[in-house]
């Protein structure tokens, strides 16, 4: 087992290095650089920059050097000093910008994840146990529509409903009076209220997906001999359900747990832009558009690493669950 884990981790290293190449290449792709987009912004404001000024700014920011040199400087700083570079837009180190938004990002992501599992697993079990009942059709239909609706537009519809019903579209994560207020019970309560729409919107499509997976798994498990035996022995339906099929059906969901976090992180991006949430997504979107390359790059890198680590965790979990995978790997 340990041998498997070590081998699996060693395999990740070249992938990570290549990912960092690709990330840097991608953030270089948009035409122009930060200086040209900055000068365009300045000239729109009436302040035209001369070529000499632009060159000086480029030299200051290190943007005049060849691409591969910029890459190595960036990588060197990350590995040796944990320094992810400088955000031009925020005029702050990338790490600070990320840190500023990280707390709320994690809150939103974790609450969304909890919501997903809390909703999807019971519904999945219910629809499987009562297959072809009215409730099954209702929830299955709902989950189909949930998968088909672009979630950012659902956000708008919910905002509109909340506006007509409660007179507040619940934009952002805090009401105006709490944005800069110190933490208090009222502020937490206010945050909770504002979280409802984002959590439903961000979680809906994965929830719909999870319901379908859970339902399929349960249907497979419900007719297995161990369930029949348990029933023959006279166990109550509830304890049968809880003891055998549910546990077995949860396996594939648990094994993708590490992986789903990064999908929530990114799934939230567009929704967060629409709902004006102070979390990572919109910040990074602006960084991508504004050529704030180190901020955008660090974010892309972070997302990709999260996926790699997530896959690694779920692979190790799977190997732990299923001895066949371990031995197959050793065979190679």
């Amino acid at each position: 087992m340990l041998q498997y884990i070590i081998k699996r981790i060693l395999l990740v290293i070249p992938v990570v290095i290549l990912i960092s190449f690709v990330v840097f290449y991608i953030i270089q792709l948009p035409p122009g650089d930060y200086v040209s987009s900055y000068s365009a912004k300045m000239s729109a404001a009436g302040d035209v920059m001369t070529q000499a000024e632009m060159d000086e700014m480029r030299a200051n920011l290190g943007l005049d050097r060849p691409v591969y040199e910029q890459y190595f400087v960036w990588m060197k700083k990350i590995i040796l000093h944990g320094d992810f570079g400088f955000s031009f837009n925020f005029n702050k180190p990338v790490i600070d910008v990320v840190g500023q938004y990280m707390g709320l990002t994690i809150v939103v992501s974790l609450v969304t994840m909890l919501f997903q599992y809390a909703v999807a697993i019971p519904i999945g079990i219910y629809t499987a146990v009562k297959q072809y009942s009215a409730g099954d059709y209702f929830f299955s239909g709902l989950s189909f529509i949930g998968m088909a609706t672009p979630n950012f537009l659902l956000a708008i519809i919910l905002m509109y409903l909340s506006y007509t019903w409660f007179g507040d579209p619940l934009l952002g994560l805090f009401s105006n009076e709490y944005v800069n207020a110190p933490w208090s019970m009222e502020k937490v309560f206010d945050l909770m209220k504002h979280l409802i729409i984002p959590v439903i919107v961000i979680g809906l499509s994965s929830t719909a997906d999870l319901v379908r997976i859970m339902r399929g798994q349960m249907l497979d498990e419900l007719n297995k001999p161990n369930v029949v035996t348990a029933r023959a022995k006279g166990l109550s339906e509830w304890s049968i359900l809880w003891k055998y099929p549910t546990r077995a059906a949860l396996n594939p969901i648990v094994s993708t747990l590490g992986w789903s976090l990064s999908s929530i992180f990114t799934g939230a991006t567009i929704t967060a832009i629409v709902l004006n949430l102070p979390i990572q997504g919109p910040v990074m979107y602006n960084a991508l558009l504004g050529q704030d390359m180190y901020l955008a790059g660090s974010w892309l890198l972070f997302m990709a690493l999260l996926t790699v680590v997530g896959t690694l965790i779920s692979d190790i979990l799977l190997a732990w669950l299923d001895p066949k995978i371990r031995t197959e790997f050793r065979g190679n």
Partner: protein
Amino acid sequence: MKTLPVFKRQKPAVISPAKTKDANYSSQWRLIYLKFKKHKLARISLVILAVLYTVALFAQFIAPYGLQSYDSKYVNAPPMGLHFIDADGKFHFKPFVYGLKSERDPETMRKMFVADTENRYPIQFFVRGEEYKFLGLIPTSLHLLGVEEPGRIFLLGTDGMGRDMFSRIVLGSQVSLSIPLVGVGISFVIGLFLGGISGYFGGWMDSVIQRIIEIIRSFPTLPLWMALSAAIPPRIPVVTMYLYIVIIFAFIGWTDLARVVRGKFISLKNEDYVVAAKIAGVSDGKIIVKHLLPGFISYLVVATTLAIPGMILAETAMSFLGLGIRSPATSWGVLLQEAQKIENVALYPWKLFPLGIVILTVLTYNFLGDGLRDAADPYKK
């Protein structure tokens, strides 16, 4: 192929003769077709999709107005109802619409439109309107429906520039419905080619391709899409922009397919009949095309169909953010940009019509994919 009578005698008695006949005498494709026919939702979905694509094909003919046409007199006009009975209670055989009068809301002083029951405009079919090229070839000005000047027909209302929503949805469907098809088509070819090499030949080529796939898949799709779309230079011709977007989608989409293809190749290449063909000296190319591909092409079709809804949603999302299709071209995502503002949704809810079409399309593709998946393995119970 004729079946020997001896097969008939071996038939197990428990199976009904009609069923046995199908299983024994039909080709695999016919079995797939028979199984697919039983999936009601998939069949309905296929019909709906056929209608949608037909509309997209003849969009310029069906849309009463062109892409550029606007009328500043009718900004944010509500959908017009089709009427058969006029204000006096008289029945008209031809449906008609009322003209629009603009008035001010007495409370909010906001401009609003009310139906002007004085002016009736019966709907006319095959009317002359804006010039366009039918199927991109034949110049004509014939439109399916319209009303007489100075009347206007806004079946689904107008947008913030006074452009007919119905026309724009119909015209936008050309982009929104074709991008996923072309994108999936390209990723199908790449996936088949690279996945095939990877699975059939194995060795170092397999390792290299697998690493590439792993790297592309490590990127969460959305940020990658955003990053690549941000790289599309502004102010480029519509066709180039379209190509860029399709290539971006295909570039990310092919990895899923390549994995399916690789898995199938690996599981099939050690089958006895393939080994026999190899020993008999059949060339690699012929083995792949004649013996391997027919074995799993149906699965590929399923995987491809199920990839389409994701692309539709992605195109909508990207265009919605202004990173995808940009004006003067239009797509459903572009149309939904106006719905970004909550005031627009509150005051002019008909701006959500494109959303309905997006949901319908994605749902039908999902159902179609489900039906195909069940049908792809006709021997499974």
